[in-house]
Structure formats: structure tokens, C-alpha cells
């Protein structure tokens, strides 16, 4: 009787496949694109082996972590221009403190840096939630501040870390090698755990909910400020992890402002290509992580093709605009068909 008002009922198999494609298709597509790109890359260079896999995996770690950091904040309906700054600050701090320390101490420092970054960015999230200053302004300011402090901590590139910490991220105590296991684990485990936390716990879902419709979320009992702070804090934690990974990969810290700005830009690009909608509530951090690696692999591929690697910038920009245009048109269509 009331079938017209009481909505979609459970569907058949074909419909649920279609639904899976519609919901996870973008994320799956991003990873397929990545595999295709790498597959193509193997045909472009004379030799593709464990060394190349290790190289791609370990060097894309900071982009992956930063994409996760930006991803959670964008899902919550915000944006974090300071993420790159926090990565640089963590990188510099870790490198300055770890130099010459025994392995156990460097691990403790790494944990402390990640926790500190989470606390710091959680405070940023609190400022945004409470002051109602636009997030762009607040995080632009934190981009200034974080990089400034990074320069104070480590006035010029330098510092170091322990071989053991390097091993954890790169698979080798010297940072160079063919053992790709640890790097792949370092990509996969945090990404999947984080995605599961976001979509399966009440706290994680509350981050999606405030990005989707913060008023509705508030009315259904979500503590909006707390969720916002959690989003920025976890994002900060991943930015800190990106900084630690950078320290491990390079065995040094680099406080330059450029690194911070590039980090932020790359993370935003990854989030957009990864299918996380600016405005919040939609998308998966898994897609963002894949997109982070894609943008990282563009340069070597272009180089292998004999094209100026600077074209990677152009491609990155073009892809972002294309994705956003498509998203904009889809949204317009949805509005029109309501």
C-alpha cells in the first residue's frame, strides 16, 4: 500500500553489484589506475624489480600519510592548509632530536612527535570549531606558524635518525635497498586501520556525520566540537607520521617552506582525486591514499617517457580541475532531477 512512500527495499544481486560500483567504484578505480600506471611504468624502463618497487613504496609514504591527514579533515567538512607545515615541523623536530640517539629512544621520539602533532592540530580544530573563523584562514595561519617554528627548531637541513627507525619505513637501515615489505606494510596497515576506524566506530562516523550535515548530526546527539577536534587531531597525527617517515627516508630534516606548501598542495590534490568531496561527508581515505601514490609516481613515469618531469605539475593540476568539474556537473544534475 504505502510502497511509494516507504523507500527502496532490499535489492537483488545485480542491483547490489551496481550499488557497490557506485559506492566503492571511485576508490577501486583510483587503485586500478595506480596499478595501470605502474604496469605502464614497467614497460618504460629497462629493468623493473624489487628496487623500483621499494623506491616507489617508501618515497610515497609521506604523500600517503599526508593524504590521510587531509582526508579526515576534509571528510569532517573542513580543510587543513597547515598539514604540510605540520609535516615539516614534525620532520625537523624528529631529525633534530633523533640525531645520534639509540634506536629505542628514536622510536620514543617518533611516538612523541606523532602525539604532539595530534595534540597541536587538535587545538587548531578546537579553535576553528569554537571561534568560527573560516578554516582556510586558521590553517593558513598555522601553515605560517608551523613552518616558522620548524625553522627555529632546525635552522637548516640536517639532523638524523637511527638505522632501526629507517628500517621500519624503508626496509633498510641505510634507506636504500630492495626489501619492499616494510614500506608496503607502512602504507597498507595505517590506511586500512584508519579507514576501518572512520567507518565502523561511533567516533569515526561522527566525523562523517558532521561533514555531511553538522546540524542534523548535532540534533541526533553527535558532539560536534568533539568530532571536529578529533578529525583535526587524527589528521595532525598522520601529518606527524608523515614527518617522521620523511626523517626516516632522508635520514635528515628539511625545514624549508616549499616543502610545507608542496605537501599541502599534494595532499589536497590527492584528496580530490581520491574521491573525497570538498564540503565533507563523502569519500574514503583509502582512495585518497591511492591518489597520493599516483601523484607521486607521475614524475618518474614522465621522466621515463622522456617528457620534462615538470609536466607532472601540469597533469596534476589538470586532473584536479577535471575531477572537480565532473563532480560539479554531477551535483548540478542531481539538483535538477530532484
Amino acid at each position: 500500500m504505502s510502497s511509494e512512500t516507504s523507500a527502496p527495499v532490499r535489492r537483488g544481486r545485480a542491483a547490489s553489484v551496481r550499488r557497490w560500483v557506485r559506492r566503492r567504484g571511485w576508490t577501486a578505480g583510483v587503485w586500478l589506475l595506480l596499478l595501470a600506471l605502474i604496469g605502464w611504468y614497467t614497460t618504460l624502463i629497462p629493468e623493473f624489480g624489487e628496487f623500483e618497487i621499494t623506491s616507489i613504496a617508501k618515497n610515497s609514504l609521506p604523500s600517503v600519510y599526508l593524504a590521510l591527514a587531509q582526508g579526515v579533515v576534509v571528510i569532517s567538512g573542513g580543510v587543513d592548509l597547515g598539514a604540510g607545515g605540520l609535516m615539516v615541523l614534525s620532520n625537523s623536530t624528529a631529525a633534530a632530536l633523533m640525531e645520534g640517539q639509540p634506536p629505542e629512544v628514536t622510536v620514543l621520539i617518533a611516538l612523541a612527535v606523532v602525539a604532539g602533532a595530534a595534540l597541536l592540530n587538535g587545538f587548531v580544530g578546537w579553535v576553528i570549531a569554537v571561534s568560527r573563523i573560516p578554516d582556510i584562514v586558521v590553517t593558513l595561519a598555522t601553515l605560517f606558524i608551523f613552518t616558522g617554528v620548524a625553522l627555529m627548531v632546525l635552522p637548516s637541513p640536517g639532523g638524523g635518525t637511527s638505522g632501526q627507525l629507517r628500517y621500519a619505513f624503508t626496509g633498510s637501515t641505510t634507506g636504500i635497498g630492495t626489501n619492499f615489505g616494510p614500506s608496503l606494510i607502512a602504507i597498507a596497515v595505517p590506511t586500512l586501520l584508519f579507514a576501518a576506524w572512520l567507518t565502523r566506530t561511533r567516533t569515526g562516523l561522527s566525523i562523517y556525520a558532521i561533514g555531511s550535515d553538522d546540524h542534523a548530526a548535532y540534533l541526533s546527539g553527535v558532539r560536534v566540537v568533539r568530532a571536529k577536534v578529533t578529525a583535526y587531531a587524527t589528521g595532525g597525527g598522520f601529518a606527524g607520521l608523515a614527518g617522521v617517515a620523511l626523517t626516516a627516508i632522508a635520514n635528515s630534516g628539511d625545514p624549508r617552506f616549499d616543502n610545507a606548501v608542496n605537501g599541502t598542495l599534494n595532499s589536497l590534490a590527492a584528496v580530490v582525486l581520491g574521491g573525497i568531496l570538498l564540503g565533507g561527508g563523502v569519500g574514503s581515505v583509502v582512495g585518497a591514499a591511492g591518489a597520493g601514490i599516483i601523484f607521486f609516481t607521475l614524475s618518474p613515469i614522465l621522466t621515463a617517457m622522456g617528457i620534462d618531469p615538470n609536466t607532472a605539475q601540469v597533469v596534476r593540476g589538470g586532473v584536479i580541475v577535471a575531477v572537480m568539474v565532473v563532480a560539479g556537473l554531477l551535483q548540478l544534475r542531481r539538483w535538477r532531477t530532484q
Partner: protein
Amino acid sequence: MSSAADRDEMTEASDAVGRTALLSAREVTKRYGSVPALAGADLTIRPGQIHALLGANGAGKSTLVKILAGVLPADGGTVELRGVPVRPKRPADAFAAGVATVFQDPTFAPDLTVDRNLRLAGIDRGRFAGWADRLRLGGLDLDAYARDLPLPALRLLDLARALAHDPQLLVLDEITAALPGDQVDLVFSVMTHWRGRDRSVLFITHRLREVLRVCDEATVLRDGRTVATVVPGEGGERRLVEPMLGEVVAQSAAGAAEVPAVPDRPSERPEGAVAALEARSLTSREHLRGVSLRVHAGEIVGVVALEGQGQDRLFDVLSGNRPFDGGELVVGGEPVRPRSPYDLVRKGVVLVPADRLHALLPRQSLHDNLASALYNRFSRWFSLAADEQALVGRTVARLAIDTRAQRQVRRLSGGNQQKVAVGRWLTAGFRTLLCFDPTRGIDIHTKEQLYQLLRELAGDGAAILYYTSELTEVPLVCDRVLVMYGGVVVQELPAAAADEATLLSAAHGLQEVA
């Protein structure tokens, strides 16, 4: 379910109620800035009672609900639940204290699935499933995104979720407005079942018939105060309406006397006269199923309908704010297919939207607001109109707008804001005015000014299409009236025949018997 004897007992024992009450709110006050919304409201709900909260627009109902639900803090007064003072700081606190509210707007996050929305709120799945079955949502796909669900399903989901909180007090704010009849019955059966478990329901509605049907007691608010507690059924609807309206009835009667009656105009027009605005079988998704209407220069055509009969979409389409799917829109004899409101504004068809916030530039000055429609085309971008001052001055004078708080129009009173919404078209000029419920929530004096203004405009040759949610306005303002139901115009009446009863029955889709 409760007998008449029960009811008598209730009213007599109203003093004792304070101790045994499930919810007892005393002298609750709340101000927004300098505007009082609640000036000492009392509400007592006994266990096992369905209690109605009534009042005209702006009486403070929704403010009181928000305070009970923890959305807003009260400025003063006390709220006790089973004798324990409660002061929820946020909705989560209210749930925990035993008050679950179904708000007017859906509270499922649109981009999450139903299932995840439930997990988000920490809902016991078994309990939810029980209530969902009872509300005939058993077949609902829990893995569907909330945004893909139709509004009635969302309302029932909200209700099932609220029930799954297992609250002492269930607050239902206008839940029946968006529901078709069979689902309203479901809601009522759940409400009575809830009462049977010695829990209570606070029911907010505009439909007095529903109050008579299910409520045991009703609290009436007026101007932020509790003015009466009545037992529905004793004296029918009238008993409920009187305290709601209070002096307004007298005022509006007096006001009606001042406004001259609609002059008798020949209802036949010359054959083949070109309508200022004509819709021919307009369709738009499920909202409009073929609307045809004509508005001629010099007349005010009223539109009345219950909530959600497609009137919003009709005005959206007629103003060019949304494209239509089928049919024809004809302006001054020429068919148009507008891509944006601009295409119709150029042809003189302009909209005063329902929500004043859609018509105002809240942080701009009065002057800039009134002049805003002058500069919508490229050719006028590079200077200011030479006669801007004069045009705006004329509008201010004609509308008698209070110009004191003119730095930012968001500081103007509601009535003055509504004048600005109309005023920007007086400045820029128009041929056809689409007015959507312009008098909602404004004071009686401004209302009369608006009636007067619209009549003058029509006298000057404007064509006006006027939707109103207040049926009593129709004979005061309109020449004839169209009744919409289910996305089509079901009836047309001359204003003289459009008394409230006739309009209401037509608006419910009941054809005239005579």
C-alpha cells in the same frame, strides 16, 4: 483510549500534578538578543499522557521544544523530569535524561547509510527493528543512503530511532506535516501504545483535528506564555483556537474592516486577452503533475494548498529558479524556457520568495538591498544608475519602511524585512509579481500594509500570483483563488466564495459537493 472520567480527574488534580508529573517546566524564559521568545512558559505532562503543545506562529512552541531537547539553553526557569531537575546542554544530554525528540527537519546525516546513522547515535538495533516493523519500515533497505530516501520514510526513521532511545518523554514536532494519511495513522497508533506503557508524548501540530483525535490534554502558548491548559474535546476546535488567537482575533477583525473590500470587478475579460503569465500543464518531477493557470494584468490570483502539494515547486518553476520538465510557460503571449531567474526577470516576472533570507542581502544596507535588482545585467555594471537615489527614495516612502536600522538589513524587524523583499522589485520595476506567503510571521499592522500595497499594485496594472498559508487572507487580498492538491490545481473559486471552510475542504482534495 483514556476515558472521559480520566480526563476530569486530570484537570481537577492539576495541583497535585506537580509532584507526580513526568515532565514539569516552570516559568521557562528565553530571549534572542532583545526579542523575547519565551516569557514564562509552563508545561506539565503526566505519565501516560499524550499532550499537545499549541500556539500560533511565533508563540514560542519551537523554542520550548528546543529547550526540552537540549538544542538551546533556557535563560531562566526550571525543567524537571520525574521530579529531577534537568538542564541538557546538548541533544545528547536530553537523550540520556530520557527525552527523545523528533524534530521538524530530518536528522539523519544524508551521506551516511541508515545503518551507519543508527550506529552513530548508538542505537540498540533490536529495539530499533521492533519499532521499524511497527511503523512498517521492516522492508526498508538499511544500507541505503539517507539522502536517497523520501521525506516520509525519513520522518518515520527519525521516529523509530527516537523510540529506540526508549525515552520517558517522546517529543514529536510537526511530525504529521510531511506524512500521508495512512502513515499518520501508524504514528498515532505508536503514540497511543507509548501512552499505554505509562510513558508520555508531547505532540506539536497545527492540525487541530489531530489534537482532538489523540491528545489527552493541550497546553496553549501565546506570546511566549502559557495561556491555557485545556482538555480537547470539550467544546471542539473552537475551545482550542480561542486561547491561541487571543487578541489577534479582535485585531484582525478590526483590520479587516479597515481594508476596503475587494472592489467588484467584471470577472469576464475580453475574449482572447493575453495573460501576463500563463502555465500550460507544467510538470516538474513528482512535484508538479500538470499545472495550468493564467494571471492577467490587474488581478491578484490567490493560491492555497496544504503543506507539500507542489506549491513551492510551482513558484520555483514560475520564477525560473528551476527548469520544468514538460508543459509550457507563456509570458505576455510568448513561450519561454528560462535557464535562470534572469530570463524571467527581464520579462518582468519576479519572485518574492517564502523565506526572507532568500530575498535579502543581510549584511548590506537598506539602500543597497532596495537597489540590488537594478544591476543584474552586464550593461549596468560600470556605473550606478543616475536615478538610483530617487528610485530607492520612492520605494522607501511607498512602503513606509522604518529606515532607522538601515546599516544592515538583518537588524530590521521581520515585517520591515518583508517590505524590503517586495521593495527591491518596486525599485527595479516588474509586470508580474509572484508572492510566496509574504505575511508569514509578521505583525498585523505590516500585514495590512502589504495587503494594501498589493491591491494598489494590481490597480496599477500588475499581475500578482499570491500563495498564502493563511486562508483568511484570501477574501481580503485576492480576486480569485486556485486550490492546489497533489501537484495540480484542483479548483478555482472567486474570492467571494472562498471562505475558510470551502478552501479547507478543497485543499484536502475533497471536491465540492454542491
